[in-house]
């Protein structure tokens, strides 16, 4: 009897043990997470996964449960567009930031190192957007469903856009595509040499854009998704900078893609310049917006993008963010322009007939260019690089209100609904003008420029002649049109004015008058974190 019980016991225990060992194969039952294998061809899941690639450029992450996409000391600080704005603006004459946060001062004065958290964040986040896109592209490339085919092309566009900023800022990033897996491996640059690698990557990006051109949606098919016009604008921007990025000028190609945008007849300049920087600046309401990162007071929130620009440029005394529609946690008092930029933008000498700007003309009203949303603060000079934001030239171009001053749709007191512009129609005109000028057709260049200036002045009074068209004029015009839109550094580098001594501004290089800086600073370094983590990476020269 006892033996029987013993045997039964042994058999039973063996069964229990066996079934318990199977318990180890457990998968998540959390409704917020979806296992990779379960994504399938669900159209909703695909759209949501595509949405992530877009969102990764503008907001910090998934909100309270999923958290930020990257680990950093502050999610909002180190979003792609906000950190990119710092790299593109506060390193130039257009802006200087008063904050004491680590990494700000060395960007202000062009004395950054490879440890700078902002350049690290931009580098890592662009790489992350590429990685998200790679996964999506790999998962969807076999699909014949027309929607999925278009999603696939949009993901490739976003990857090409991320690589384009990489080309501009870092030159030679690690190169991965959908063929690479996920785990712990060491991606390689396309070539150890930055000049060769940069050219190879340039060619890859261009070939990608050519390949997807026909697969993308027609222009304006579904703002804010990337469409064919976005693709043309990105190609134009690549070709515009080809001389700097590859050593070979491609202005003829730039012109071709600007033509495609302009000749489509689908876009025009917004009658009111300010609309481009207002809550109704999106492509559904604004004929000028081609591609932008969408921001929305209730749906796409964060102290990022245009919210950051508005708040960081407001101080409560000279510029008051509540007047610009943001009443919560306002007036961060950080960014303002430097005097040299003001001079180039309003042509101070001509405007004021050689006299100093009258103290009473705080809004530079004597300048007839309606693009000047600037004002005098405590003083036009900035006494020290760490001076408070009360010094310098205030900029209030961006607003969280609609262009007519009314309250934005989906209004939120803390977050602007103003989209962050990436490609505007004005850029197509000015890129084409620059191409015409480089190709020797100044008459056509002046035609394009005058379209932009007629909108700026409200009439033809600001129009120029071919005699007035110089390289410097083109650079200044781009400044007037695109200031605070994260383009300045790229433009200064292309015109050879970013580091060398032909153009200096306050606190460039760390002195009041500004000094020459070394030309290796035209490219940012590969972040120290990356060099440590990836033995395949070659640092940029000079760092």
């Amino acid at each position, binding site marked *: 009897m006892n033996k029987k019980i013993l045997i039964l016991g042994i058999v039973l225990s063996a069964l*229990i*043990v066996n079934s*318990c*060992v199977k*318990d*180890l194969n*457990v998968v*998540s*039952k959390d409704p*917020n*997470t*979806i*296992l990779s294998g379960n*994504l399938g061809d669900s159209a*909703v899941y695909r*759209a*949501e996964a595509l*949405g*992530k690639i877009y969102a*990764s450029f503008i*907001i910090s*992450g*998934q*909100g309270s449960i999923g958290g930020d996409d990257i680990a950093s000391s502050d999610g909002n600080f180190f979003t792609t567009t906000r950190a990119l704005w710092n790299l593109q603006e506060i390193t130039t004459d257009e802006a200087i930031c008063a904050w*004491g946060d*680590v990494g700000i001062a*060395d960007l202000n004065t062009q*004395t950054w*190192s490879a*440890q700078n958290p902002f350049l690290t964040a931009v580098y*890592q986040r662009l*790489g*992350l957007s*590429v*990685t*998200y896109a790679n996964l999506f592209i790999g998962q969807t490339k076999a699909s014949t469903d027309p929607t999925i085919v278009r999603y696939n092309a949009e993901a490739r566009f976003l990857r090409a856009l991320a690589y384009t900023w990489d080309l501009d800022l870092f030159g030679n*990033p690690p190169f*991965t595509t959908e063929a690479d897996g*996920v785990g*712990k*491996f*060491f*991606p390689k640059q396309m070539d150890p040499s930055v000049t060769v690698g940069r050219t190879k990557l340039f060619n890859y990006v261009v070939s990608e854009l050519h390949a997807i051109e026909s697969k993308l949606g027609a222009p304006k098919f*579904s703002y804010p998704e990337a469409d064919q016009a976005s693709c043309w604008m990105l190609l134009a921007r690549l070709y515009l900078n080809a001389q700097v990025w590859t050593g070979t000028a491609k202005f003829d190609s730039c012109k071709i893609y600007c033509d495609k945008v302009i000749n489509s007849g689908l876009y025009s300049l917004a009658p009111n310049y300010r609309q481009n920087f207002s809550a109704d600046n999106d492509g559904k309401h604004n004929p000028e917006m081609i591609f932008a990162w969408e921001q929305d007071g*209730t*749906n*796409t929130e964060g102290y990022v993008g245009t919210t950051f620009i508005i708040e960081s440029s407001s101080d409560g*005394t000279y510029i008051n963010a509540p007047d610009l529609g943001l009443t*919560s*946690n306002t007036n961060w008092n950080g960014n303002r322009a430097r005097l040299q930029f003001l001079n180039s933008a309003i042509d101070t000498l001509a405007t004021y007939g050689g006299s100093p700007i009258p103290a009473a003309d705080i809004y530079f009203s004597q300048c007839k260019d309606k693009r000047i949303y600037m004002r005098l603060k405590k003083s036009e000079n900035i006494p020290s690089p*760490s001076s408070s934001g009360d010094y310098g030239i205030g900029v209030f171009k961006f607003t969280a209100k609609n262009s007519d001053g009314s309250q934005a749709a989906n209004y*939120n007191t*803390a977050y602007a609904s103003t989209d962050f512009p990436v490609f505007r129609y004005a850029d197509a005109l000015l890129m084409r003008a620059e191409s015409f000028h480089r190709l020797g057709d100044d008459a056509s260049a002046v035609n394009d420029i005058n379209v932009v200036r007629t909108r700026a002045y409200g009439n033809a009074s600001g129009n120029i002649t071919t005699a007035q068209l110089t390289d410097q004029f083109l650079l200044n015009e781009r400044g007037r049109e695109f200031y605070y839109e994260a383009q300045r550094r790229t433009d200064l580098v292309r015109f050879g004015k970013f580091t060398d001594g032909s153009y200096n501004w306050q606190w460039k290089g760390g002195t009041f008058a500004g000094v020459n800086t070394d030309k290796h600073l035209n490219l940012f370094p590969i972040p*120290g*974190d*990356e060099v440590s*983590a*990836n*033995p*395949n990476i070659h640092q940029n020269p000079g760092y």
Partner: protein
Amino acid sequence: MKFEIVKMKAIWFFLFALLTLSVTAQERSISGKVTDATTNEGLIGVTVLIQGTYTGTVTDVDGKFSIKAAPGANLVFSFIGYQTQTVAVGQQTTLNVSLKTEVKGLDEVVVIGYGTVKKSDATGAVSTVSTKDFNNGVMTSAQDLIVGKSAGVVITTAGGAPGSGATIRIRGGSSLNASNDPLIIIDGVPLDNNNVAGSANFLSFVNPNDIETFTVLKDASSTAIYGSRASNGVILITTKSGKLGTPLKISYNGNASIGEAIKYVDVYSGDQVRQIAFSHPGLYSADSYTKLGSYNTNWQKEIFRPAFSHDHNLSLSGATKNLPYRVSIGFTDQNGILKNTEMQRFTGAVNLNPTLLDGTLKLNINAKGMNTNQNFSDQGAVGSAISMDPTQPVYDPSTLGQTKSAGYFQWSNYGANLGTANPLEQLMMDDNKSTVNRVVANIQADYKIPYITGLHANLNLATDNTHGTGHNNRPVTSPSVLTAPLNGQLDNYKGNNYNNLLDFYLNYVKELGQNHKIDATAGYSWQHFARNGNDYKRGIVDATHAYQKVDSTFFTTENYLVSFFGRVNYTFMNKYLLTATIRDDGSSRFAKGNKWGLFPSAAFAWKIKEESFLKNNSVISDLKLRLGYGVTGQQDIGNDYPAQANYIKSQAGSLYEIGGLYLPTLRPNAYDPNIKWESTTTYNGALDFGFLKDRITGSLDVYYRVTDNLLNTVTVPTGSNFSNTLLTNVGSLNNRGVELNLNLVPISKKDMNLTLGFNFTYNRTEVTKLLISNDPTYIGILYGSAFTGTNQVTRVGEAPYSFFVNKQVYNANGNPVEGLYVDLSGKGGTVSGNNADKYIYKNPTPNYLMGLSARFNYKKFDLSASARTNLGGYVYNGVASGASLDQMYQIGYWKNMPTSLSATNFVSRQFTSDYYVQNASFFKLDNVSAGYNFDNVCEHFKFRLSLTVQNALTITKYKGIDPEVPGGVDNNFYPRPRTFMLGVSINY
């Protein structure tokens, strides 16, 4: 029930009276001499008691005694340091007794993993702290009982909030990113260290009054039988139980206490703020002066209070026939020194140990229940009270009737939305309460298998269920900590933890001949942990708006552990002991191929005292050498599915528009498909010793511990994974240390005893590898925020979390020069805040720890104290580093600063200066307690009164309020109170 007790008391009294009567009738005089069995010398002061009575005498200078006793009586001879003897009187009138010295601890049984062992036969580093050594006056947090009591065990309380938890570290931490908490097992039930929502301390369900012993397993040879959860040590907690053959014993323990804040942060008064404001016209705009008030409010005084608490515990224990039992209930009401913070707790415990089937089946049934109600309020008030402008009043009559005030002064009524919250309003208006219920129950059956002598089967079934609910609501009159447009908030949450266990093992003990003994155990264990919870937040604008920012979150997660284990103890000639254990652990957390880990250990012990050359040595009373080696693992890595590829959906507010609709986005999460166990190898060498009849006992342990496959969150190569960092097995670190435990008995007399306990720990942790690649120039893992900059680093060759700061330059007067630091890189440019110019300066972990405890009793009076010293630890004083003149006026409001600012007069904050890394070595007198026993107040009643002071004294150079800062960065935590406690204990 009450009636029952009264009735039983009456019966007892009657029986006792009868007994006394009969004894008195026939007693006669007995005399004799008590001698030491080895020296034959007379022993002075031996207590001679008639068994079962309080009648007795004490031996004189020659060891002689005389007593009257009945012929049927037994005499009990007891003396400290000697084995107690009971002798039947019979017909004798002369009685000579020789007492044998007691080799203390020889037969003490120590709980180890899946079994017990005689202390003298233990081969690993095991230390036991039992009731008599516990810290006095502990009400809610079981961990606090053994603070400072065992070498190598560091317990840091989270702060002074009622019912708050503590971190326990045994021999430093063996991990960086994975858990460093030890495995805690209560009455055979391994606990889940995760707190359920609404609970501040996962150990609060055990009433400290129910605990009998803490056994700490420190080295791998003793912990490896717990395999993958053992790298940070194991703490086995045994609760009290009834004993076979004892009568009903009723005890009541109660105490009442009053706690108060020890020290406030020294901040400026209203007058001082006004003076600073007007003496720096260049710093503050003219407009700012209009915002200054005329008051002198001491905000810290406004938020703290003397806190009254009380605690009551009642237990009944004894045995009826074969059923020993113990039942206890407890109630605690602990008020925090911060206003509106409180914890109320009810506990109940039942323990039954019946023996069935002619003694072959022993059952051990335990059930513990807890109900806790906690009021957390908003402890951010501690920080606000330091920053809040003292020129403003607490209550603001001028804004009465305005929505955003509720009668309190609020900056938001004056246009400064970001202004410091009124600390008192924060505390009083926040409705932040939780209720947690927990039941832990298990049944352990030990069955002596027939036919095979020495074979036992042991089955343990356990369940642990916790349910927490709570809310954190803010009325619309209290917008202080909310982001506009919100003025109020509703937040309800729930959480559940489940933990079920099945353990089964066979134990076989066999003696082969005279010299060989084998004790073998083999078993199987299955444990399932599940956690889920939800949180439903709603923002309120005002009564006319719908809820805003509605955020509803839900999570559920689980994991399984399945294990096979075995142990063999082999004893040769009762001198040489060998232990070998093995555990094969399967964890559901890892992917196929990495699920199973094998963890072996071996230990050797040599009882040198048993050798002939020492056996009769009178100086050395005990000597044992222990050597151990073992491998343990770590699988508690904070995520139950780290190896699985999945997507996470975004919440409201983080959407993007696709196809004309705002959709949540799906993000692929970073994961490592090859993630696996951390494995820790420990070497331990030790000597246990006793001198002078064990008047001096102790142990000295030396250990070296290496963790490989260290889980570390590292920067991953861009493009290789779905984030910039990834938790993966890349690093190594080691711990080395020395531990000394000493127990001294300087005085051992009839009426007077003094026992001293001392422990010393030296531990050093060093990181030896951190990256996938090996870059010698790698700066390390940096910690800090965008605002304060990096101030801590974990780097190869250094202690984890070392401070990483700029080297301050001082002027001729020895004061720090603002913003001036040594350019350590020599590259010029911005030095302040630049990582290239920073250096590693100290770290938060103390190198040397000492614990000291003393117990003294004279007749019925006793006194005990325990103290600790930590040496070599540093703290970053975040309260002081956040202070600067330019921060005193913010956007539309004034802010107070600690007066330490007057020493630097910094205009801007200097977060990265080494000036703020301050020596946090300390000496703390944690606990002083005095008691008096009234034995004969009434027959059978023992009555004791005690007075305890907790947190009596701190000596330190540290400039903040308390040098004992969890994590090493001082940012205004709930201060630990000083508590005066009156305790009463009644035993029947």
